[in-house]
């Protein structure tokens, strides 16, 4: 077999060069197209997020019933001219004989809106709660009907999260400010209201009164 000539080798090398150049060209063109796809998407990408929040004032009484149950004054403990004081957050006093279970609990109020709120308290009977009883005649003693804010352990409307009126106040028949700037934060958005009845001698029967809490957005 004859050896191939240098000319043949040179021809093959030239072909190899042409193939190499052509391959490089086509490969570069392919990569360039990929590059165009990626870079074309970048500068014009736009994202928009819109959030609409409606301010809502809303309060809820988690406990809306202060029920002192059924019972009577213990005449062997309290004089006729004195009152037997019942407090929703306290244990049964000795001046009161309960015929059933004595388990009154405070009102428990929560801000379930999403803004700070001022809360007022009101009652239609003013100080004389016993005008709502079956027998309203007062023989002796000084009836009274009072409220007081009570901070919970969470601190709602407490020193750091608003201003709560914790002093004992009479119902007057008008709205009275109970809590200023009650937070809407779930962890500090609630407080209690203690109700106190000063039961005189005389009234009897079922006594009921509605207490109204009103909230308005604080500025």
């Amino acid at each position, binding site marked *: 077999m004859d050896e191939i*000539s*240098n*000319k043949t*080798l*040179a021809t093959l*090398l*030239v072909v190899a*060069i042409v193939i*190499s*150049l052509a*391959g*490089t060209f086509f*490969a*570069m063109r392919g*990569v*360039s197209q*990929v*590059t165009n796809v*990626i*870079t074309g998407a*970048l*500068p014009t990408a*736009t*994202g*928009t997020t*819109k*959030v*609409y929040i*409606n*301010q809502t*004032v809303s309060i*809820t*009484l988690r*406990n*809306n*019933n*202060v029920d*002192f*149950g*059924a019972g*009577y*004054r213990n005449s062997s403990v309290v004089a006729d001219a004195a009152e037997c004081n019942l407090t929703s957050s306290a244990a049964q006093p000795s001046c009161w004989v309960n*015929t059933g279970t004595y388990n009154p609990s405070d009102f428990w109020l929560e801000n379930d*809106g999403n803004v700070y*709120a001022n809360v007022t308290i009101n009652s239609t009977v003013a100080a004389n709660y016993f005008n709502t*009883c079956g027998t309203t005649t007062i023989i002796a003693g000084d009836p009274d009907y009072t409220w007081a804010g009570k901070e919970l352990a969470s601190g709602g409307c407490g020193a750091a999260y608003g201003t709560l009126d914790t002093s004992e106040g009479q119902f007057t028949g008008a709205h009275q400010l109970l809590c200023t700037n009650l937070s809407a934060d779930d962890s500090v958005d609630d407080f209690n209201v203690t109700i106190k*009845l000063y039961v005189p001698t005389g009234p*009897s*029967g*079922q*006594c009921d*009164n*509605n*207490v*109204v*809490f*009103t*909230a*308005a*957005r604080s500025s």
Partner: protein
Amino acid sequence: MDKDNDISKRTVLVLLVLTLIVSVVGTWTILSQPTTIYKTMELGGPAPGRVSLSINAPTVPQMSNEAGKVSINIMK
């Protein structure tokens, strides 16, 4: 084959070296393309984004009322 008409070995060597150079340069060029893509992404203009927040206050003062009951039954 007539050896007198053949090209020299030097010419073949030059062509061989040229082939190697073209091959190496071509390979290097292709391999460098992905890096170019990466740089293009890095240097691309910032993509604009927008976040809008609208808090709608009520047009009239909003109130909320809750009523509870205080009850007692005095037996005598």
